[in-house]
């Protein structure tokens, strides 16, 4: 295990903890997106660039976007 791996492992653990400890769903979408970026970094370090690309596209873009849109929908309903 190289120093780079240890650093990215710690980053991933920190990012995951940040997602769990963010209580407000809208902010959580943002930390989730950042966590996705860190996770894809780990995949690159572990020499899995194909997985890293999937993670980058799905984890940092699509999933947070869907979360934000779902929150927008539920809040609009609450306002009515």
């Amino acid at each position, binding site marked *: 295990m190289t120093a780079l791996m240890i650093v990215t492992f710690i980053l991933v653990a920190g990012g995951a903890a940040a997602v769990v400890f963010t209580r407000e769903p809208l902010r959580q979408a943002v930390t989730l997106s950042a966590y996705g970026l860190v996770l894809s970094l780990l995949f690159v370090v572990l020499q899995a*660039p*194909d997985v*890293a*690309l999937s993670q980058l*596209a799905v984890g940092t873009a699509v999933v947070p976007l*869907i979360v934000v849109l779902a929150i*927008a929908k539920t809040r609009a309903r609450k306002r009515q």
Partner: protein
Amino acid sequence: MTRRARLILFVFGACGFALLLAAALLSVPGFGTAQHRYAERAVLAAQVQRHTANAVASVTFDQRGLDTLAETFMFVAAVLGIAALLRRNPDEEEIPPRAHRQERRPPVPNTLRLAAYLLLPVTILVGIYIVLHGHISPGGGFQGGVVLGTAIHLLYLAGDFPTLARLRPVPVFEATEAVAAGAFVLLGFGAMLTGAVFLTNVMPYGTQGELLSAGTVPLLNILVGIEVAAGVVLLIAQFLEQALLLRRETARK
């Protein structure tokens, strides 16, 4: 079932799971070891027999093409499920465009709009590149397809929802997704016409590292790319429709 019976059942299941997990973890190869029995064979098959530079693509689309076919249809099923769940209810009506404009939040900053418009062609180009070079470099149909599917939503970031809605007519994308997924199956049957097994890579392998190499792998990558791009667009379209266009008729009164 009483609380006690459920607890006993849970403890029983949890113990079994823990035992099996421990047994499985004990036989896993050590972290970071250079040797792996399956990887050695798969990489050898990819590089020597199949002239596929990206060994991962060789495994997913050639050596284990059937698994990828199943995954492709899992994605179709997921998009279908979302479409069914988020369909318009009888008591929901579309917000008229004028009211929609009045309800609009503060205007999108110009820098964000400029960045979105500038990034749009670049992102689409990157997506096409990732799909077409899936058998040579990291990436492939799924990764490139997701990039392509999300790329056009930069228009939404730019605050240009009408253009986005015009650019992606939902029925066309539904048909595209179905046709691309179906073509994957047809390509599998096509291989059988030559007397080979379903989804065998029957096309010439060519020279490793060239754009036209690896036989059917780039073809399948393109099909999956189209299918995933259309699927992602449909997926986000359903959510956008729910979040922006629909509201409950009864709640308004």
